[in-house]
């Protein structure tokens, strides 16, 4: 297990270095997206008004407040990623997103895109919104405001993490490995329980 501190946006080379189980923190640019953001992008054909190339995208529906023209953070947490599977391969292929941040992981289609184009899935600690909110320095922009709290958010973050590389660009899927190991151990555990 290696630990990395990165600056976003990321290069393909940096991302290819990451291996499942590594720990990452980073500074810089972070986009917030969710179900509706991606329905708007992919099903309703709206091009993002900002480049996502090299950036990480986090699955979130943030609590923000608007004071004049400026958006301020209240509470930003992370949601379950599996609902976003349908959109993720295109997000990576078409827009060059290099990291997806969420909890619970994604499926094979996303993993294939990560291998092909050079991207990773970074697992955050679910339930840790207080920490995430603290690590967001600024809400730099909110695009497609009418979709709030599922708009497209541009955050600037500092020491964001710790994040575990759960799916890497070499085809490893940590959640699946851990699950397979649990399933492998089950017969012995059943035996001990007498079931």
């Amino acid at each position: 297990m290696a630990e990395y501190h990165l600056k976003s946006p990321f290069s393909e080379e940096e991302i290819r270095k990451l291996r499942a189980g590594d720990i990452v923190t980073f500074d810089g640019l972070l986009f917030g997206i969710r179900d509706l953001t991606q329905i708007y992008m992919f099903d309703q054909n709206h091009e993002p008004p900002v480049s996502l190339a090299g950036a990480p995208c986090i699955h979130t529906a943030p609590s923000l407040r608007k004071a004049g023209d400026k958006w301020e953070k209240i509470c930003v947490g992370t949601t379950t990623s599996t609902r976003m599977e349908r959109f993720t391969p295109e997000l990576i292929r078409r827009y060059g997103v290099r990291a997806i941040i969420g909890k619970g992981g994604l499926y094979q289609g996303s993993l294939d895109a990560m291998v092909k184009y050079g991207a990773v899935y970074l697992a955050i600690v679910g339930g840790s919104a207080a920490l995430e909110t603290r690590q967001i320095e600024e809400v730099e922009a909110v695009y497609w405001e009418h979709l709030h709290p599922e708009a497209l958010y541009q955050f600037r973050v500092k020491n964001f993490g710790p994040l575990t590389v759960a799916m890497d660009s070499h085809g490893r899927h940590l959640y699946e490995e851990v699950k397979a190991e649990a399933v492998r151990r089950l017969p012995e555990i059943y035996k001990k329980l007498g079931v």
Partner: protein
Amino acid sequence: MKDFDYRIVEEAAKQTYIRALCDLPPDVRAALKKAYDRETKPTARSVFEAIFRTIEIADRDKTLICQDTGLPIYKVKIGSAFPWNGARIKKCLYEGAKRATLEFPFRSSSTHPLTRVNPQTSVGVGLPVIYWDFQEDSDTLDILMAPKGSGSENMSKMQMFYPAHGVKALKKFVLDAVVESGANPCPPGIIGVGIGGTADLVVKLAKDAILRPVGRRNPDPQIAAMEEELEEAINATGRGPMGLGGDVSTLAVHIEMAYTHITQNPVAVNTQCWPARRARAVIRPDGSVEYGY
């Protein structure tokens, strides 16, 4: 009774919701610390470290631990010597949950199941969830509040087995449910198990189980032994914190039991995430309120 000021109950309903979201109970903190001490995998240890930093920030800034403000649940226990008006108490819980949401303010997580319209108040038809109970030789109104997040609640499971399936079917059901749920319920939390009762009661028992302070065993030694046995089995799977692998997959298994029908053998699982949030207010007839967990 005429003199009792019900605004106290409404205020307690509001305060317990806010307290539960911001201040993790001491037994949960202690259980997380104990779990960290025995965890050996580096990635899993880093999950715990993030958890501790989160709790610290929430304490210092009086802010929400998790953005999922959950569905509000109130368990009310009314002492035999407490003068009370149930309809008033019910209204106070509704208003208190709503005021917590609007006045803190935090996100409302409640919605209409068909239109999906969120009233932005955390309450609505059937919400807050309220359970009523009564206590002999007590003059207090005891309100236990729990905001239940969806990551863990979505992993709930229930099954009506037959007596012929035996106890072993119940154990296998619990273990399989936990293995299947992976990272979704934000482990390591509490695995609540209900056994016996009717179809509705068994699920309610599983919910009661997660609201017990972490690690407090069921007083029935046979059930306590089953709790220990299942805890060991779940941790042996290696699912680990946030499903990323590790020695600690659960903080505790809690089981609640009720008698059931001679032809039935029901079981239910209700999981609780690592922020096992709850807060308590004990109200006396003189209007004084003591807050706790």
